[in-house]
Each structure stands twice: as structure tokens, then as C-alpha cells.
């Protein structure tokens, strides 16, 4: 059976959900005729027509605003940001309007806001961002960051069927670099559940999105040195699967958090707080972080490589922690 890329998995999820439910529509810049900047929506307009696949002006606030309105009318819109960096232009609509809607006046916003995030493709300061933590800090949103093609498809389907605004961060580095065989039948992956990608006894590496792959690569290397790392893929940042993290830390007694987001205010800080609050006695060493630097994402390949975490940096940190 043919393998499916991460990108194709996302495209399949949209096709299948639009086939299943006429209330699902797609709105964004160049999503229709062009099929999206990364071709995630290629073929959608041909199959579902102009009314369901809507090309908009370059107006991120209006895209998100219109999607909110559509959800009020009972639709399940998918709004695309051409690059997730541009979500900054729609920050108000996401954080004040959509996120607070159900809490304030009981109006659910069943909207998905998806787009390519992340670095490693030399996109520079405005096409490489990992802005997830702005939104993890916003009650009322759900934040999903899949690391595999299977999860990308299953989580996107869950996001579309969810009654809340779900931010779906697709890692563009993974779009065409990873593929796997997917189930033929309809499947979903639940939002809010982490996955243990590799079992180990010596330390826990918690990560998400592209850095799951760097962590797994590091784990293989570490195993060669006799260090067995357990690798957890968060899959969802909000709501965070605290139980899976705590269960693993209680087993390995050591925690390393790896993320591509910048260091200060990244999810690692929150996870460290949770673990010290709830499993302090279980820790046999300090909680360590491997993250990007606290700078904008630089453009030159050498600079970006220096900026980003890598398997090598994870190995170095894990080795030190294991011997603590």
C-alpha cells in the first residue's frame, strides 16, 4: 500500500471531511484555484466548488472574522493562514473574539485555523515562526501540533469535528519529508492526548512537532551509549496531557523538554512547573530544556542551524542529564 506524506494526509483530511459534511468549508488566501501555497488544498475547489472553497483578499483578520461568523451560522469552517506567522495579523480575532466567545456568551466557534509553521526551511524571520505559545496562553482555544502523517490526518479530522476554535499548526519541514501507511477507513486522533513514541527507563524526552523526530533520532544514538530515553510526543499543547508526562517522569525520574519554539515562555517552562508541582519527589535531576534561541528565526542556513535545536543538541543535553 502506498505511503502518504504529512502534507497529503492534511489534504486527505479536508477532502474526507468535506465529503462527509456539507457544513465544512475552506477559506483563505490562494486556497482555491491555486490550491494553497504548499498545495495542501489542491483539487478542493474543483471538487467542491467556489462556494465551499473561498479565495479571499489578503486580510487575515477578515479571514478569521468571517470564519467565526460562519461558525455562528452553523458551519464548520477551516481558515487557512498561508504561513502561520501571519496569524499575528489576526491575533485580535483569535484571542479576543473566538477564544472568549463561548465563555462570555455561550456561543461556540467550531472553527479550525490551520497553517504551516516552523523552521528548518530557511524561510527567515516571517516564514518560520512557532507562535503556538501566544495561543496556549489563551483559554478557550485548543492548540494542536502533529508530528506524523497519521496524527496530522486524524487530528485535523478531530479539529474539524470539534465545537471549539482549534489552532492546527502544521510543521512545514515535515510536509514532504515524512510519510507512512495510513488506515483506509475513517479514523480520528483525539485532541488532548499525548503519545509515547519510544519507551525507555533512564529519562523522559517530551517534545512535539518536528522536534519529535530530532528527539527520536537522539534516542537511537543514546541507546548506543546505553541510555534508554522515553520519547513523548505531546501532539496537543492545549489542553496539555499532564497525565502522560507525569506517568513517564515517575518512571524515569528525569525530564528533558525539547521544542523548536524559543526558550523563554515556551511550553517547557509550563511542563517544568507541572512536574515540580506534582512529581517533585520523583525527580532525580534538574529539568533540562533544549529549545531554539531567544531570537527571531534567522535566515542564513548557518544561523538558522545554530538557532534551532537538533538531534545532536538533544543527545548532549540528555547525556548530561542521564549522568546527573
Amino acid at each position, binding site marked *: 500500500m502506498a505511503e502518504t506524506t504529512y502534507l497529503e494526509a492534511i489534504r486527505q483530511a479536508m477532502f474526507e471531511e468535506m465529503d462527509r459534511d456539507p457544513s465544512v468549508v475552506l477559506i483563505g488566501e490562494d486556497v482555491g484555484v491555486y490550491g494553497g501555497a504548499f498545495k495542501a488544498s489542491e483539487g478542493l475547489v*474543483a471538487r467542491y*466548488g467556489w462556494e465551499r472553497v473561498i479565495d479571499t*483578499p489578503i*486580510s487575515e483578520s477578515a479571514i478569521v472574522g468571517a470564519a467565526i*461568523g460562519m461558525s455562528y*451560522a452553523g458551519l464548520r469552517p477551516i481558515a487557512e493562514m498561508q504561513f502561520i506567522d501571519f496569524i499575528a495579523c489576526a491575533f485580535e480575532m483569535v484571542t479576543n473574539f473566538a477564544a472568549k466567545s463561548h465563555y462570555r456568551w*455561550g456561543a461556540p466557534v467550531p472553527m479550525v485555523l490551520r497553517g504551516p509553521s516552523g523552521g528548518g526551511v530557511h524561510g527567515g524571520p516571517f516564514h518560520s515562526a512557532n507562535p503556538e505559545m501566544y495561543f496556549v496562553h489563551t483559554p478557550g482555544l485548543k492548540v494542536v501540533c502533529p508530528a506524523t502523517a497519521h496524527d496530522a490526518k486524524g487530528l485535523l479530522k478531530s479539529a474539524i469535528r470539534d465545537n471549539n476554535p482549534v489552532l492546527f499548526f502544521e510543521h512545514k519541514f515535515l510536509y514532504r519529508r515524512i510519510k507512512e501507511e495510513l488506515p483506509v477507513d475513517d479514523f480520528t486522533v483525539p485532541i488532548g492526548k499525548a503519545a509515547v513514541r519510544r519507551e525507555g527507563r533512564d529519562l523522559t524526552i517530551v517534545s512535539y512537532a518536528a522536534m519529535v523526530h530530532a528527539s527520536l533520532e537522539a534516542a537511537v544514538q543514546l541507546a548506543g551509549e546505553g541510555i534508554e530515553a522515553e520519547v513523548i510526543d505531546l501532539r496537543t499543547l492545549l489542553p496539555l496531557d499532564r497525565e502522560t508526562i507525569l506517568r513517564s517522569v515517575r518512571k524515569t525520574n528525569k525530564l528533558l523538554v525539547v521544542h523548536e519554539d524559543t526558550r523563554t515562555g515556551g511550553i517547557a517552562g509550563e511542563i517544568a512547573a507541572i512536574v515540580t508541582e506534582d512529581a517533585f519527589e520523583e525527580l532525580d535531576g534538574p529539568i533540562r530544556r533544549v529549545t531554539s534561541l531567544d531570537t527571531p528565526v534567522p535566515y542564513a542556513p548557518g544561523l538558522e542551524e545554530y538557532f534551532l535545536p537538533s538531534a545532536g543538541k538533544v543527545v548532549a543535553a540528555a547525556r548530561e542529564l542521564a549522568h546527573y
Partner: protein
Amino acid sequence: MASTLTPKQHLELYYFMRLNRELEEQMVRLFRQNKIVGGLYPSLGQEAISVGTAYALAPGDWIAPMIRNIGALLVRGFKPRDVVTQHMARYTSPTQGKDGTSHFGDLKSRHVVSPTSMLGDLIPVMTGIAMAGRYLGQKIVTMTWIGDGGTSTGVFHEGLNLAAVQKAPFLLIVENNQWAYSTPVEKQSALRDLADRAKAYGIKSVIVDGNDIVAVERTTREAAAYARAGNGPVLIEAKTMRMLGHAQHDAAEYVPKAMLEAWKQRDPLDRFEKLLTEKKLWDAKTKKEIDERIASEIRADVEFAENSPLPPPASAEEGVYCEGCHTIEADWQRPKEQVMPPRSSVKAEWPLKSYAANGAGPRGTEHAAPKTKPGKKPERAAVRIRAKAGR
């Protein structure tokens, strides 16, 4: 087009305008008694706009009132108790104390969307509802209000431009009350008429005397018919004056006294009462009956609010997410098959016309959503931007 309002409708308009004014005056009293939890944003002098515009729409249409549009909420069937309990942060309020002022709505039955404090947001939101309504085969229009100051926001531009290119059945009421908090309109915009903003979007606009409820109602009704027929959005500039401060705490000493005096002569309620009398649409007895009805409704509802409990503190934790408490259901007024493959399928290329007209390159895309019938292939393109599409 002349007003088609019946005598009974005239009296209804009076009822809502008077109710709007009396209710706000009562809330000022409650404010002075320290019973209003947050701010109080008066609409004195602007009642004709809230009431007249909302009254002109059909029950299935959607509205999103702004903070000074309590009159529109009343027209839509909300009661004084909803407004008072909201301001007093009672558990019986529409938001159960989660939000205050006129920040509430009702998606299911009244089709009222709650505002946020950030101005302009409602424009793309109501455009989205208008687009969804058209998609679902409903014959609705949507409407929201914005002040003169709100027209300076970025999302005003983005939203109205989207409404324009989508030819959305959407009405925007620009309530030009001359003041954005303490800043006069000439510091918001260099335009003499804010209606001229519509020109930049290629949409229709109308200017109306916002203190003449008959004109406001008629103008809005005509605009709604125009938008409902698929002609695109309409911007209505209703010229008026904010007769009090931005909110209860603001004495508005920055407003020239002569300006206030001049506008006092144009009070919308006084003018409408005069008209009712001149046209012999009521007599003193009718007026007294309506006024007494309003007084007793407000009295009962304030009593209800004062006797209502405050929200239990732990309820602060509830309701952040919809976990199955709501069902998402669209009101389909057309067969769903029309939007499902293969009937919905189209060729993925732009049906552009008049390419290079005036030497200006491609212009005049023909497939504005309302015109494209599902299942019908768009006209053959003169230019082929992208031919390849398909799974």
C-alpha cells in the same frame, strides 16, 4: 420611496425609543446607587438609529449591536431585565455574570451576535454570517453598527473589503455621533462624510439623518432589500450626536456647549412625538398608556434584577469550552446535494473577463459567489491562470 409604516408601527417605534431612553435613565439611577458593576455607555440622542435600523430588518436577519445599541436589543425581543441584570452582573443575566453591559446575544432564536470591545471586529464576523446564509440558501441580510471612531480601525477596512468582493448581503450602519470618547470626528477622518469610505470598496452608501427615525427605518429597509437581492453590501452613515460622555464617568467637558445646544433641538424622541401628534397617529391617552406600560415594565425588571443572586464564584471556572453543551446545526434552506460532489464540481481556473482592458491587466472576475450556481460550470476563461487541479 415613502415610508410604508402603519400607524401601529409608528407607535411600536415610539415604544422602543421611549423604552430605550427610560431604561437608560433608570440605569443611571442604579449607577448612582452603586448597583451597576462596571461602566454605563449612554445612547442618549441616538435611539432613533438603534431602534429604526433594527426595526427595518426581517426576523430571520442577523444583527450585532454595539455597546450603544440597546434599542436594537429591545427591538429583537430582549427585555429590560436582560439589560439590567447584565449591568448588575447577576446570575440571571444572559451571560450569567461572565460579561457585562450589552455584551450578550442569542445565536439560535434571535440571531443576535454579542459585540466585543474591539471596534470593527463585527464587520468580518457579520460578513461571514452573510456568506454562510447565502451558502445555506437563506435569504438573510446581516447588519452591524460602528461609530465614527471605529471606522479608523484596520479590521473595518479588511471586513468591509471582504464583504464588498464577496457581494455579501451585509449592512453597515456608521453611527457618526461626532465623538470617539474625547476625540472629534475630524481627528478620526479627513472625510466630510464617512459614507465616502464606501467608495473605496466599490459599494453603495447612503447618508441619513440619524435623529429622524422614519428616515432611518426607511433607508435601512431599502438598503436591506438591495443587499438581499444580491447587489452587495450597503454602508449607511447616520449622522447624529452623542449627547452625554463616552460613559457615565465622563462629563464630556471637551464638547462645545453650543454644539450640544444645537443638537438638543434635534432630539429624536421630541421630533418623533411631534410627528405623531401632527399626523394624528396618537393622542394624549395613547401616549400615557405606552409610557405607563414602559414604566411598569422597567419597574418590574429592575426589581427582578435587584432580587437576583450574584453568580456563585466557582462558576468562574465553567464554560471556557463547549464540551457537547451546544449542537452545531446549520439551517439549510437549499438541498445539501447542491453543494456536494459531483454537482458542486467546477473547473479550477478563474473565469476572468476583459483581460488587459485599458492596458491594466486582468480585471473583472466574474464568479462572485452569489452568481455561481453550483453544478454549473463557470464561463470559459479568457485567461488560464492555473489549469491543473484535481485529486
